[in-house]
């Protein structure tokens, strides 16, 4: 899923400086699961914003709404935004959600409340780790199910580099060396000979420009 985290409250307040009323919009998708922009976070942020602005002597009206997914037009269109009532929409979705809200609400100022960080998995309660760069050219069948594009600091497809030490990456010892993990797993699977196949350069042609997908079969 997409993992995001809330921006510091001061940063959010700074973007709301000119606004006296805001529609705070949550999302029940990925950001609910990673505890960044679901129902609960919307409630908490609304009250934080109101009390901070009260302290500043410039109260703000915060209306709230949580939709199923901010990445789908039919749900975004359910947002109770009104230009007369709201100076801005503060979206608690990922960057894709924020942009769809802006696209659907052409006359609204749409602001992000979150920083979208990565596509990842949960590693126990409250911990998420990055696992996919959405490179568009998956090579996991060649690397024992461990992605070097994401997990090697240099994205080496034929690693490891000379900086792999005691299972750790030279860039940051808290990062496991992806190629140590790949080699260990290949060995466990009895496939270490696969290591010597040269993996050809990635095809970045779908990565370096805005991508889209048009699937006739599900239209």
């Amino acid at each position, binding site marked *: 899923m997409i993992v995001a985290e809330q921006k510091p409250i001061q940063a959010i307040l700074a973007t709301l400086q000119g606004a006296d009323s805001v529609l705070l919009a949550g999302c029940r998708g990925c950001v609910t699961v990673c505890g960044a922009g679901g129902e609960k976070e919307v409630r908490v942020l609304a009250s934080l914003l109101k009390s901070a602005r009260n302290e500043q002597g410039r109260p703000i009206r915060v209306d709230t709404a949580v939709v199923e997914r901010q990445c789908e037009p039919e749900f975004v269109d359910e947002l109770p935004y009104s230009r007369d009532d709201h100076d801005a929409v503060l979206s608690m979705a990922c960057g894709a959600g924020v942009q769809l809200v802006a696209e659907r609400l052409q006359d609204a100022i749409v602001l992000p409340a979150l920083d979208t960080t990565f596509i990842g998995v949960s590693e126990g309660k409250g911990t998420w780790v990055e696992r996919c760069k959405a490179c568009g050219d998956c090579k996991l069948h060649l690397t024992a199910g461990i992605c070097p594009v994401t997990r090697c600091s240099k994205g080496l497809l*034929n690693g*490891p580099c000379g900086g792999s030490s005691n299972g750790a990456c030279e860039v940051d010892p808290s990062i496991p060396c992806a190629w140590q993990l790949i*080699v260990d797993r290949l060995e466990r699977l009895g496939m270490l000979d696969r290591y010597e196949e040269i993996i050809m350069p990635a095809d970045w042609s779908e990565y370096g420009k805005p991508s889209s997908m048009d699937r006739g079969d599900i239209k």
Partner: protein
Amino acid sequence: MEINQGTEVRKKGALQGILEQGRFAVTAEAGPPRGARPEVMAHKASILKGFVDACNVTDNQTSVVRMCSLAASSILLDHGIEPVMQMVCRDRNRIAAQSDALGAYSLGINNLLCLSGDHQSFGDHPMAKGVFDIDSIQLLAMIDRMQTEGRFSGGDEVQGRPALFLGAAANPFADPFRIRVPRLAKKAAAGARFIQTQCVFDVPRFEEWMQGVRERGLHEKLFILAGITPIKSLKMARYMASKVPGMSVPQELLDRLKGVEKKKRKTEGIKIAVETIQKMMEIPGVSGVHIMAIEWEEAVPKIVEGAGLVPRPSGRA
């Protein structure tokens, strides 16, 4: 102009010549200056001339901005030193890498060392975006294909093939150790002809790696130059022992330096380097040494002389 498979016929470089003649090769390293000062490269050339067969020109090593390795290599060439131009994947994509390879060969550079490159977080621009479009093995394979098949990575024809002597690095001391020989095999398969290794302080571990290299017959496919770094001070030795990942500095070496008076440690460092070279010359399959005297080029002539490796052969048939 005589044309051979799209390549202008040109004599091989001295390094390739010496290695192919089976003579023990000596290379060193010269870091380009952190400014537009060609005289720095000229000065380094004057120190090294007559003591090395070729000299590596590092490519923004440790991710610190310096004069580009292409220009600095060309300056060395003008001053009578054969360069080994280093090229890293951190700062250039496959388009720039192929372009620079063509440019290098056209300027008379014969040797290209293909590296992934240090991560940008170690240098003076940690905020920069690393390119890493391809890795060192893919870089080797790409340049090799330009030379042998006459095709660019994208498939178009190379109109005038370069004939660079391709090299790569190997670190026998990094983890996981069990793939360090297979990794070398990958580099050989990708087109590397010579290898320069990480600094050897831990001779037994290097010998263990070399044994694996010989078992696979890789010493017959690749010329292996063992990395030699003279230690300047106890501080430097301690730093390399504890702070540099993928570097093995045995405790005996630290103790040996500690047992020497502070002002005599530089001399001791040179002595250790000479002894290490003598050990390397005894190991079957080692074709030469690569002396990395980091910002201490003055040490190189002393080491080469100490090891009895002067005068250098011409390398020309």
